[in-house]
């Protein structure tokens, strides 16, 4: 049974996962028994009652009340069990423990931002304490997204102009994947993030140091790190290949044609503007879809990113 579970479902890493899996397996087992029965009946009947001759006569069996009541009532009882079981599990998912640790989540096309109590912001990396309920308060900046952690069995749509929430308690430390499951356009399938569950002390450490710039890094190294941390590389390549946005390769001081036909030079001011107000000047052939990084990056970090872009040619 464990083998089957392992094959069918991702590892169960949250407190509610066990209940979901239990019901999944229950429905699977009952369905399997019934399916085998039905398939057997189909095959057995078509062998046993195969037409022998054109003159075959068949008995007139129009109905059988007892049988029909049985095959209506028994499935009804079974589905009512499933209904109650599923509803209880759902209520557990929807009832947030009062001591839950709160994190703000913002979905943007196409990245996830996580805002923590001390002002720390992380992009596409959610860090949570293990063995403690965590409540995510979520909203979207543009279209509908959906926040899904398969290992935790949680999912909730992230809506514009409205808060939705999802809570979970990770049972062990470790990393899991976060997907966007509501179709949101071109880079929908790149809107992937990770959740890392830490022990309480590791989490405190991470929170205290996450947004502190490592002084030992050179601006170029820092820029490279920031590009990775902020999800820039989901849309911008460093090898010249065309993704959602223009590649960084060879872009420094290049002439770039805009949608309106004018031409700009990709200099420090253009790059800075493109980070803070991405839709002000759109390169020809691209769509105005990049979210603004206003408030997410300090001047020093923007400088570092520009330094890094200079080196990619």
């Amino acid at each position, binding site marked *: 049974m464990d083998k089957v579970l392992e094959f069918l479902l991702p590892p169960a890493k949250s407190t509610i996962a066990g209940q*979901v899996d239990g*019901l*999944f397996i229950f*429905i699977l087992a009952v369905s399997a028994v*019934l*399916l085998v029965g*039905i*398939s057997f009946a*189909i095959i057995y*009947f*078509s062998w046993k*009652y195969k*037409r*022998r001759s054109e003159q075959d*006569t*068949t*008995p*007139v*069996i*129009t*109905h059988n009340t007892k*049988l*029909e009541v049985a*095959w*209506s009532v028994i*499935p009804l009882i079974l*589905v009512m069990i499933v*209904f109650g*079981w*599923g*509803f209880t*599990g*759902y*209520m557990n998912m929807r009832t947030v423990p009062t001591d839950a640790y709160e994190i703000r989540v913002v979905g943007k096309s196409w990245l996830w931002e996580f805002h923590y109590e001390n002002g720390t912001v992380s992009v596409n990396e959610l860090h949570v304490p293990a063995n403690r309920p965590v409540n995510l308060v979520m909203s979207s900046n*543009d279209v*509908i997204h*959906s926040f*899904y952690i*398969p290992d935790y*069995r*949680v*999912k*909730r*749509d992230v*809506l*514009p*102009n*409205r808060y939705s929430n999802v809570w979970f308690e990770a049972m062990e430390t470790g990393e899991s*994947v976060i*997907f966007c*499951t*509501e*179709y*949101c*356009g*071109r*880079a*929908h*399938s790149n809107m992937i993030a990770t959740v890392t569950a830490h022990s309480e002390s590791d989490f405190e450490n991470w929170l205290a140091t996450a947004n502190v710039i490592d002084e030992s890094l050179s601006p170029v190294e820092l820029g490279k790190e920031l590009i990775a941390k902020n999800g820039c590389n989901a849309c911008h390549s460093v090898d010249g290949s065309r993704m959602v946005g223009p590649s960084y390769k060879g872009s420094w001081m290049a002439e770039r044609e805009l949608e309106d036909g004018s031409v700009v030079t990709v200099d420090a001011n253009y790059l800075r503007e493109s980070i803070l107000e991405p839709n002000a000047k759109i390169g020809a052939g691209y*769509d105005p879809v990049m979210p603004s990084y206003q408030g997410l990056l300090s001047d020093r970090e923007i400088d570092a990113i520009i330094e890094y872009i200079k080196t990619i040619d």
Partner: protein
Amino acid sequence: MSHMETSALKRLQVQRFKPEENPEIHYLNSERGLWSWLSTVDHKRIGLMYLASIAIFFFIGGVLALVLRTELLSPAQSFLDADVYNQVFTLHGAIMIFFFLVPSVPAALGNFILPIQLGAKDVAFPRLNLASFYIYTIGTVFTLVAIITGAVDTGWTFYTPYSTETGTNVLLMTLGIFILGFSSILTGVNFIVTIHKMRAPGMTWSKLPLNVWSLYATSIIQVLATPVLAITLLLLVMERALGIGIFDPALGGDPVLFQHFFWFYSHPAVYIMIVPGFGVISEVISTFSRKHIFGYWAIALSSLAIAFIGFLVWGHHMFTAGQSSLASMVFSFLTFLVGIPTGIKIFNWLATMYKGSIDLKAPMLYAMVFLFLFTIGGFTGIMLGALSVDIHLHDTYFVVAHFHYVMMGGMVMALLAGLHYWWPKMFGKMYSEVYARISCALIFIGFNLAFLPQFVMGAQGMPRRYFNYIDQFQPFHQLSTMGAYIMGVGFVIMFFYLLHSLVRGEKAASNPWGSRALEWQTTSPAAPHNFEHTPVVIHGPYDYHKPMSEFQLGIAHGHHGESHQPETLETVAETGTRP
């Protein structure tokens, strides 16, 4: 209606009309030329024109599916870019649902067979029927223009606010579907009136073929639900064209409202697609088991129950969308209730096979494939109806697989069963049974190979509508793609043997399957007005214990008792509904 009960019994002079074999004049050759087709009001010809149209759209949708599956062979981009991929999956869904599935059994098979099954000369409003076909054509033209002038990338669900913000041709596409809806409504109205008013003498509600019952249930849904789609699409158009805030939060609208509107139509629409399939399966299983259908009323009424409850379950598409927990609970509960009548049908069909005289011809094989695949589709529907499990499975490949098991494993298999079953009546030709079986086997194997792995990767967490995916899902995607190719081969074989049948197929007998149903008591291909006489029905369509001659009765020729026909006899038929 009151006079009906008082004069339920009426004496009729009847005689036997044995259907002529190899008729010289039938509906296919009674008139010739392209114009005779384009201007025809014959329900059979209109049915065939629908059949040709849906075959073309099934081909286009199928090719798009193969393109998608080929791209998904590898986790990263191979030969499509993300935008094209998104447009292709949108078109695959929209074409298969709105242009193929919705009109498939009701408009194509239903149009052809419904009046013959009732013993009527045509549908109640033949001109309206032709109008529905042209409205359908205009709708598809609009959509094709939308595709050519800049495709649509919203998914077939058109969720706002994405669909109001994307730069693609959503307006024209929704307008096309809006127009299509009218075709669907008019066909529904036509069928309802036909079933009420055009039944042959003696065909009471309790002698109605089950296919007619399910078309009746379908028509009710079409008439009641399709206007909601029209309203929704109009609101969407108003928002996009005029900037009136209805769904877009930037304009003060509510995006979840769109989902309510959309599923209020689209969930019943799922039943528009599958319920007619139930009718076909009932006919085929009874005919090829040569046995009375088990639980006639259970099957007939469960279709109506499904049609009714089907209106009340739309919220189960929105368990993660932010509706209240109470609403989710109610929708989950009702979803399980709608599962029961569906389960009852499966057991009824099995019981019909019990002690039958089963002939495993192609239509029966497809019906059995239907039973197996649709049962899997049903069980996985139970999983998705369970609230806590649905949270995990929602919007993953599990849903994609479930939907394909129901729609393709259910509806398309039923369509194929029906197509092979009524093919001789349509064209007066037989097809190669051997190739039909090979193709059925390939489609069965290919289908399971394509969609079983999708259940597993969905449960593992693979989201739907993903252009790229993480490496762990690759083996499942590769199996799935292989399955899709095998299915493709199956359909290519089918295309060729059916084409061969049309060109040089063996002549079909009027009743090649030995069925008791009324549509088999006329010539193959059917006569221009279905029957040369007015059929009179004294037995139900599944009364295999009664001799064939008693199913071939019609109102006797000649005047007042002038009985030059030796077979003329007198019978009492319950009538009263025929004017």
